[in-house]
């Protein structure tokens, strides 16, 4: 049994929170460059150039890319042959978030209670943590910085199996259209199809963590992604909603087995500042 110290996790999560909020990964920058080549609206092109300039300044000056430094959402694959010395996994993650958001001058955007007392917890905790036990002795931690503007545009619908692929496409296109300028396009559209109510939502969020534009390994799913991207970009919303041909940088679809009676579809939209990081401990 491999042992990992609690503080190692804290330190890595702290650094990861800051890194994710200052530095876009190479896949995101490449997606901007590709979008700039294709965008037809001159104003849309100008917006894309400003988005790229913003990412340069943020990286260079260690400034948050966006003032909404998000809710920290973690997907953890925890090897069953590893144990943590000195504390609980969730405590280590939350301590890392606490330190990262304080040391990194990141905004604290979590209230302790949704309805009766919306008081800011002042340290951006608790984080949202999804844990999966896997084989091996590694801990893989993936982080998604989920801003409120795009998270608020998420939606889920329990379709009938008879609605089929056309029903799925319609729902995705309608969701992006309804979101309009709110989620800061060009967006990354995460789509979860199948599973049950909560599984569809979780895989839709997980889809946002894939390198931008990396297709699903299954050919038929990848072809659905391509088709959806083409349709979404025909809506005309464009960069930050001012009109244009780049409404989405990518559509990522994840699928999961489901009940014979069901066809759940979840859409989770990520803004142009697609802040995701992955580490292995």
């Amino acid at each position: 049994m491999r042992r990992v110290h609690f503080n190692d996790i804290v330190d890595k999560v702290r650094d990861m929170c800051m890194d994710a909020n200052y530095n876009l990964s190479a896949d995101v920058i490449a997606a901007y460059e590709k979008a700039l080549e294709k965008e037809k609206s001159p104003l849309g092109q100008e917006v894309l150039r400003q988005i790229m300039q913003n990412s340069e300044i943020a990286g260079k000056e260690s400034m948050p890319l966006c003032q909404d430094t998000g809710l920290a959402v973690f997907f953890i694959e925890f090897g069953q042959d590893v144990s943590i010395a000195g504390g609980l996994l969730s405590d280590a993650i939350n301590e890392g978030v606490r330190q990262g958001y304080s040391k990194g001058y990141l905004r604290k955007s979590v209230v302790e209670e949704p309805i009766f007392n919306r008081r800011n917890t002042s340290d951006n905790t608790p984080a949202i943590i999804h844990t999966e036990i896997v084989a091996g002795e590694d801990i893989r931690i993936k982080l998604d910085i989920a801003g409120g503007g795009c998270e608020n545009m998420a939606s889920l619908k329990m379709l009938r199996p008879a609605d089929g692929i056309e029903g799925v496409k319609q729902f995705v296109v309608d969701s992006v259209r309804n979101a309009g300028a709110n989620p800061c396009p060009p967006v990354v559209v995460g789509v979860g199809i199948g599973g049950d109510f909560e599984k569809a939502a979780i895989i839709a969020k997980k889809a946002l963590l894939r390198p931008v534009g990396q297709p699903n390994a299954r050919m038929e799913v990848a072809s659905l992604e391509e088709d959806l991207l083409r349709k979404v970009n025909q809506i005309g919303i464009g960069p930050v909603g001012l009109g244009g041909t780049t409404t989405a940088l990518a559509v990522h679809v994840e699928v999961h087995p489901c009940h014979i009676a069901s066809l759940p579809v979840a859409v989770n939209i990520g803004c142009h500042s697609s802040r995701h990081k992955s580490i292995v401990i």
Partner: protein
Amino acid sequence: MSVKKITTPLTEDFIVGLKAGDRVEISGVLYTARDAAHKRLVQMIKDGDKLPFDLRGQIIYFVGPTPARPGMPIGSAGPTTSGRMDPYSPYLIEHGLKGMIGKGGRGKEVIEAMLRHKCVYFAAIGGVAALLSKKIKKAEVIAFDDLGTEAVRRLEVEDFPVIVINDVHGGDLYKKGMSEYSSL
């Protein structure tokens, strides 16, 4: 495209001359408020209390900045989604607010209030918060300190870049832009 420069407060003449799609660079003072602060401001109006700043001719920027690093006036400071302010904005517009800066579409009641009282809705480019912060020269919390990032701040800005989304003649840049490029 030409850029219209303006120093706050906004005058009705200037507002009437604006059209959806116009680029504007604002210098002077902006006040920040998000939904938590809006809720309190509206309650103060209803209770007949004095507001922390005189709304007349002013612009509210919907933003909750990141904390300032030592020696800097402010952290990253881009616009938040304006739709969350829709339940409150008509009250502030009735009481003299002349401009709003945010991102995303506005509801029917807000647009009606804007047309009736001559108030303009601008967007700043969403998600370019590090870039926009360079235009903010000074920031001071003037009310609701307990709200943290959501407190009301008085910002001094220089050539803060915005674009007119809804003018006072019924123009809507989001609708116009989308219809121009829609092929679905």
